[in-house]
């Protein structure tokens, strides 16, 4: 039964790959499986930090940078991802740089807020345009897209950081009791742990 399901999935995915067309060449796959360029990730650390702040900016509570999120994202890219997703991520950072140079004629660091929004919107669109693949099949075949890795790890990193969990959200270390029904007070943050 499981075997049949797996076969069905391969069938389904093969069809979809054809639909992606020229963007997924044999060369792409070689590139996806190469050893990730870790020094490049390090060189992009300021860009990575700015991107996380764009995803979770400082508001009345701290933003991603102040919560130490960039270091967590870099750590988890190295520890938590398969090699394809790792390459997608590092390539993604390079592509963001290139996008800014070719569209705005300057590095990301010098772009305006609106230009940054335009940039990230572009990469979000790119990441979500594989709708004909199931998430699992996509991750298996071509890895998780750059934007989604960035977004997910930024959120996780923020919500599990001390500032994020205790100020951005409500942290109840040792509740001591269970109060099953309490009125919700408007403006109350949600619990940071389940």
């Amino acid at each position, binding site marked *: *039964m*499981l075997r049949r*399901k797996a076969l069905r999935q391969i069938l389904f995915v093969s069809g979809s790959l054809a639909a992606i067309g020229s963007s997924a060449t044999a060369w792409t796959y070689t590139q996806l499986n190469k050893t990730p360029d870790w020094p490049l990730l390090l060189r992009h650390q300021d860009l990575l930090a700015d991107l996380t702040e*764009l*995803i*979770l*900016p400082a*508001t009345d*509570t701290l933003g991603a940078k102040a919560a130490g999120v960039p270091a*967590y994202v870099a*750590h*988890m890219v190295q*520890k*938590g*991802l*398969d090699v394809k997703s790792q390459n997608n991520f590092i390539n993604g950072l390079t592509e963001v740089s290139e996008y800014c140079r070719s569209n705005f004629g300057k590095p990301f660091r010098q772009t305006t807020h609106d230009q940054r*929004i335009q940039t*990230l919107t572009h990469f*979000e669109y790119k990441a*979500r345009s594989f709708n004909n693949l199931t998430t699992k099949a996509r991750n298996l075949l071509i890895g998780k897209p750059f934007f989604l890795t960035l*977004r*997910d790890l930024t*959120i*996780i*990193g923020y*919500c*599990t*950081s*001390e500032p994020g*969990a205790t100020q*951005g*959200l409500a942290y*109840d*270390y*040792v*509740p*001591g*009791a*269970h*109060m*099953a*029904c*309490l*009125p*919700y007070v408007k403006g*109350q*943050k*949600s*619990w*940071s*742990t*389940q």
Partner: protein
Amino acid sequence: MTPPIPYLNIKSTPKNTYDAIVVGSGISGGWAAKELCEKGLKVLLLERGRPVEHNIDYKTAMKHPWEFENRLQLTAKDTTENPVQSKCYAYTEATRDFFVNDRENPYEQIKDFNWIRGYQVGGRSLTWGRQCYRLSDLDFEANAKEGIATDWPIRYKDIAPWYSYVEKFVGISGNADGLAHLPDGEFLPPMEMNCLEKEMQIRIRQAYRDRTMVIGRTANLSQAHGGRGPCQYRNLCARGCPYGGYFSSNSATIPAAIATGNLTIRPFSAVSEVLYDEQKQRATGVRIIDTQTKESTEYFARIIFLNASTINTAMILLNSVSNRFPNGLGNGSDQVGRNLMDHHHSVGAGGTFDGLTDQYYKGRRPNVVYFPRFRNVNTDSQKDYVRGFGYQGDGERSGWQDMMISEKGWGESMKEKITTPGPWTFWMGAWGETLPYEDNRVTLSPDKKDPIGLPLVQVNFEFKENEKQMRKDMKQSAIELLNTCGFNTINGFDYHSPGGSCVHEMGTARMGNDPKTSVLNAYNQLHEVPNVFVTDGSAMTSSGCVNPSLTYMALTARACDFAVSEAKKINI
């Protein structure tokens, strides 16, 4: 304390001789050690893993999320080095030291089978799900009524007092619901349902005559009990609880056994076989392999309890070969290793509830709500399958973990959304009975060994037609229930998890009346070797649909009482 038993240790008292040996320190082995020690026996408790001392060895118990390197996310290393263990819901960065390493603990999967293990003192009682329900005669009579497998040699009345006995010590929070097929126990005060769950309970009562939803019965202490607890509602149980808020061998039975002065624990001791004396027609002891030195040692005792967990107990019996028992100790029936069962689960539905947005909660209840079995009970009769299932579920408001998936986008507005309580959602999953099949079995590799020299275990298991038919209903009925309760955006699911995923393995040395078709008698005694008892999941003649650990505990206490009375009568 009861007077010492006569005629123990009569032949000699070399240092390797005890009154009783208990193999395995998990949830049933802990009970065997406690009961036998409290009855005055000198007990050797053998555990193949490392020592874990209550509280002292719960290294992650008080850590904040930000104190974990990976913030409790699994890494590529987890999933590649521990492909089986990391599939267990309880395996996290905080608990992985309580799971075996897959590379060091190989086994052969003839078909996909997730064998989740915890080799340490306390075994899987550290990481268990803690739900505790009694079987009833609906379960004990089912095999006989339907002509399936073999009849249980006991009925509810035989075990009911022993359920009470263990429940009083364990401490189980629950509500007396008065259901004949889900008998009430000796409960500590029940935990409370939240607003959504209470609303659902009312709507279910209005809509159905045959269905109900009750608060889960859990081995978490809703009030202090026996010097332990109470529960602090942190919901971090599987890390080990420094408050002693839930029952484990480490927090409860082993300390009680130690307090008698009669217990010796030997960790790093993997039992390779039970030794058998053909003249006396009794087991004389066990042989162990020290997992650190790889040295083999023999220990002797008059009473032996096997509580190594279902698959390993079968391994030990099958590997205990003698002239008298060429196919394994007590295996004249050829049933040892057969009839392996696991509950089938990971099927059900989830939905979103509009309303109650002015309600929230505080504290993390380590417990579910429970929908007792309603199929093939009373007047309900299914044409496609026998037996039934129960649902476990819980209602909560979406937190950031859910909102990061349900909400797209990024920036200020997304930050606001994911840090604010989202809509109420309810998740419900079914736990279904699996029938005993002779060809779902554990065997030993004829040639391959594991790293410490034990024969490699082979598991050949699949769910069959009855389970497959039941699953359709498990999903469909969950969708229907949520519809009836007024949910929106209801999604059914069926993840088709392979056997073992529920971590409810049982059945490999079943109880029965007839030595030709069963391994154990009504007191969990090997039909063919009266001084060997098996009281872990192996003993189960059928699986029922409720979480089984409470039954193992009750069977163990009952068997210990019997074993000691037989020893006093010099019958064993």
